[in-house]
């Protein structure tokens, strides 16, 4: 088990007038090699939760273990934990600061104290993982890039630490559809080709649902659903709408068909799946 959380609670500004309980009794396990989507309405505590994973925040009560190590125990080497868990913040392009993209991506490995030739290898590797050409990009300034490219460079600057687990907070926010698809397909590739454990955080069902293998739904500081996207969309459609999340358009379409009396499977995630399902249920197969 990679991450194990028991009865974790977190309260912001404890003892201040603006005290708010953000996480209420979180219990969660994430295994190595999983591909998890964490969705929930804005302000439901998603970002707060993932900041506990690498020790940026300390729970008010409860326990959190990473590879069996209790993060709250005194003397825990948090640097080591942060090397294992790469956390990509929302709008990561806002954290770029170096003169060249090479230096930007080399920042993490350098802090690990690696020798120069190893650093270069890691920069090449990280740029390749996000589909940016090494020779074209290394000497350019990160501030001269487009928004989508900046985000990929920021992602590469985490990948160069070679984390075992990658957490991405709203990686597709503020990108155009093409940029969004690019980032998502890169994340998929990182998961499938490199076997990395990935947690994808989003408030948007669309696309994320068809990307991940397991879906966690958060609502007001609690995890209220946990299962495969198909299961959740099939069984909990009404609850999802109730907590303000809604369904992906195709799934909603299938639910409407079912409401009209057509006996279709409603746990579909993509238009292709929906087409197949509808064709299967038609009395006379269409001739193409």
């Amino acid at each position, binding site marked *: 088990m990679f991450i194990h959380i028991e009865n974790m609670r977190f309260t912001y*500004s404890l003892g201040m*007038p603006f005290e708010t309980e953000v996480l209420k009794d979180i219990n969660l396990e994430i295994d190595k090699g999983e591909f998890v989507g964490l969705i929930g309405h804005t302000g439901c505590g998603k970002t707060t939760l993932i*900041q506990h994973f*690498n020790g*940026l925040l300390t729970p008010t009560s409860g326990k959190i273990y990473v590879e069996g190590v209790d993060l709250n125990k005194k003397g825990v080497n948090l*640097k080591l934990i*942060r*090397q294992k868990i*790469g*956390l*990509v*913040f929302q709008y*990561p392009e*806002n*954290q*770029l*600061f170096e003169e060249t993209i090479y230096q930007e991506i080399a*920042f*993490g490995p350098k*802090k*690990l104290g690696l020798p120069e030739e190893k650093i270069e290898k890691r920069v090449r590797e990280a740029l390749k993982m996000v589909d940016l050409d090494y020779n074209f990009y290394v000497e350019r300034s990160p*501030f001269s890039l487009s928004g989508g490219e900046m985000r990929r460079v920021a992602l590469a*600057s*985490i990948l160069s*630490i070679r984390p075992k687990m990658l957490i991405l907070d709203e990686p597709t926010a503020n990108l155009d559809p093409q940029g969004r698809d690019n980032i998502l397909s890169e994340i998929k590739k990182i998961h499938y080709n490199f076997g990395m454990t990935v947690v994808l955080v989003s408030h948007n069902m669309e696309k994320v649902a068809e990307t991940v293998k397991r879906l966690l739904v958060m609502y007001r500081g609690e995890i209220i659903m946990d299962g495969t996207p198909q299961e959740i969309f099939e069984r909990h459609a009404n609850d999802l709408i109730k907590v303000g999340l809604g369904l992906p358009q195709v799934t909603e379409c299938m639910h409407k068909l079912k409401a009209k009396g057509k006996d279709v499977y409603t746990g579909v995630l993509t238009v292709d799946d929906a087409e197949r399902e509808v064709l299967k249920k038609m009395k006379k197969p269409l001739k193409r």
Partner: protein
Amino acid sequence: MKILRNISFGQYIPRDSLIHNLDPRIKILSCLAIIVSLFLITKFSGYLILGNFVLISIIISKVHPKFVFRGLRPILFIILFTLIIHLFMTEGKVIYQLGFLKITQEGLIKGLLISFRLFILILATSLLTLATSPISLTDGIERLLAIFKFIGVPAHEIAMMMTIALRFIPTLLEETEKIMKAQISRGADFESGNIFNRAKNLIPILIPLFVNAFRRADELAIAMEAKCYRGGEGRTHYRELKIKKADILTFTFTVIVTVMVSIMF
């Protein structure tokens, strides 16, 4: 990251109290009167009266004293430092001696007086910012500065700059915290190393912070222009400040107290 959590400066705590509802101009002027008399007083009894005056105001304001006293924390070092300097550096009757260090009676008195002075000063100004929303505070400053318009003081512009600055303090703090966290996640370390290394380690925070601040300033300027902002001339206020009976009474009382203690002590 605890550094950023505990800044109480400029934090407004909304309550429904006499102090909160006073006209900001009255509050600023009363605060000024207290500060001036603090520097005129030379006896303990004077500080005792003024100190009690401020303490009673804190109680009336319904703001928890914890928050007011929190404002003292950052300057506690300065108070202690001046106290120690005065203790050991003043010539006079020696009351205690340790090697070449000697504490004199005059030093003790002078040091304590200055400590009290700073102490009450911070309490009074903290209460002012805690019990006055930033908007009405800058409103009050603008109206007060308007008196000096005839010598060319751009009152409205100054007030607008202050409003914007105050407005962006929390935003920038939040952003600093976010960038710090992001860089820590990338392997940055802000907590160890000597002072030069620590200063160097701040670069990954400062550059993104500045880049974002400039971008934000640019956007704000465009947004203001889009809303036809063109400075203070002919500009009216949504909330007009009006002097009420309570304001006159409070101000008169404050002036009487401060003038009395300044003259008598």
